[in-house]
């Protein structure tokens, strides 16, 4: 151990090395959890398959909305349930406390986790778009693919902020698990049945403004840019609002220690 004495603040470890170390570790965890990623892709693909008939597709507002719903389903599941639960479990086990006694700034610990989850969202969105477009015989330009990736980052941020708010407001991992499932199912059902018009026109309008409905609309919008209108722009703003509000809740009430 060092016996060097100094009352001057010594240099903190380089931020780049701290972030690289955290990202590398989180990437290893991501690779080892590939089964979760696989399931997050499989479920939206299953949704695409079950709504493949032209009648079903029309019920949901067309092929582009179905693809949007499938992507929202995939990234919503992994962000609201997967991310929130992993954070809650690590918090309960004391993983964060161990990291927090190191010189790593606390924001880097969470940024690394969120970054890795955003990467997973990109993969899910890309795979679902490719499969969905192949099923519905839609061809996309490189620009549209880029936009899909951009929207998946934005949509992912909506769900990740929702997951962060959840893990901020709910302490125990079991409760986060239960609340996450409940929230996700409620959002998905509302978006699915609301958009299909089964619940009536009032619920149809409401469902378009829910996080899942808004993300679905954005995906449908970038997949058919020529039809982009003022309503889509408002939805884009709503997504920004969701991110700000949920992130603020998630930061304000988040506790690093489960005790």
């Amino acid at each position, binding site marked *: 151990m060092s016996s060097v*004495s*100094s009352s*001057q603040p010594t240099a903190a*470890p380089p931020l780049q090395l*701290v972030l690289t170390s955290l990202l*590398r570790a989180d990437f290893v965890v991501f690779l080892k959890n590939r089964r979760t990623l696989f399931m997050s892709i499989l479920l939206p693909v299953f949704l695409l398959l079950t709504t493949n008939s032209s009648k079903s597709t029309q019920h949901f507002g067309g092929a582009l909305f179905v693809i949007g719903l499938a992507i929202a389903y995939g990234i919503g599941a992994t962000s609201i349930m997967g991310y929130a639960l992993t954070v809650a479990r690590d918090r309960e086990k004391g993983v964060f406390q*161990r990291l927090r006694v190191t*010189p790593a700034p606390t924001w880097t610990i969470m940024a690394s986790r969120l970054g890795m989850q955003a990467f997973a969202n990109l993969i899910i969105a890309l795979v679902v778009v490719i499969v969905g477009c192949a099923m519905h015989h839609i061809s996309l330009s490189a620009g549209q693919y880029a936009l899909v990736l951009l929207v998946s980052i934005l949509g992912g941020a909506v769900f990740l902020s929702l997951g962060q708010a959840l893990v901020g407001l709910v302490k125990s991992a079991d409760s986060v698990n239960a609340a996450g499932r409940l929230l996700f199912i409620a959002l998905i059902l509302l978006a699915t049945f609301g958009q299909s018009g089964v619940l009536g026109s009032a619920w149809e309008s409401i469902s378009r403004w829910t996080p899942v409905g808004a993300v679905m609309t954005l995906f449908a919008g970038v997949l058919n840019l020529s039809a982009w209108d003022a309503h889509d722009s408002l939805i884009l703003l709503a997504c920004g609002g969701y991110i700000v509000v949920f992130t603020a809740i998630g930061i304000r009430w988040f506790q690093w220690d489960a005790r």
Partner: protein
Amino acid sequence: MIRAGQASSYVVAEEHDDGSLLLRPNTSDQAIVERTSGQRGPAVAERQGLLEDQRNGRTGVILDVRDLSVAYGSKKAVDDVRLQIIRGEIFGLLGPNGAGKTSALSAIEGLIKPESGTVLLDGIDIRRHPAQAKAKMGVQLQATSFQSQLTIKQIVRLYAGLYGIKLSDPEITDSLQGIGLEGEASKPFKQLSGGQQQRLSLYIAVVHEPALLLLDEPTAGLDPQARRQLWARIEHLRQQGGSILLTTHSMEEAQAVCDRVAIIDHGTVLTTETPQDLIEKHKDDPRVREVAHGEVTLEDVFIGLTGSEIRE
């Protein structure tokens, strides 16, 4: 307590009303003072000399905790605690369950925000410069937990990186060999035995050669062999110039290992002494005599001062 023949190494710095003397080494460049039998770490006189140095603006104190208070809602867990740990010292924080040991330690580690007070690590305020202060501090928490998907090698690489140290594969292998875990590099942390987990946790806590090591009940749950091995490692770290602050429930251990101990109860430090001085000072206290069977031990003093009732 200075052996005959050693007295010339010290000068009287202060003479107290109770007749006790504050001694300090009479040569300023004397880094290591020969210890009296039974003493570990810097001798009392040296510590007092170092404290004197600190008062004179020199840096003998590695950790300075001033008026630290921690509250959870309306409950005060730590109340106006003051501690000073001297370079090269092993300092024990003793107290019954719920006395405030872990809360005090958590505030020192920067894990919780104190209600008031300051924590200076080698002169660096942990609240103002957390990254710089934490870079000088090694911590072993009561229960260590790492991401379960990571292997030992990946854990070592991660934590070395967080302290700004880039370790190559051969360097990690060498380090693991040094703590007898070379064959476990690709295993997850959970698959290690209690003693192996403890060795790895301690290695990670000192991977950056910290000036101060904080250990929260480091020997809890360890078998006698693993405990002895751990203490040998801690003693080795101290010999290299490190200082150690630990909490423990084992009075026997505190008596054997710590240079000084503080007894904390209900969030307040009751006393801070060398184990021997603590026994000497309180051996005639009726509360201590009541619980002592034969020769008074540190445990008798501890129970005498904090009470016999079972805590939470």
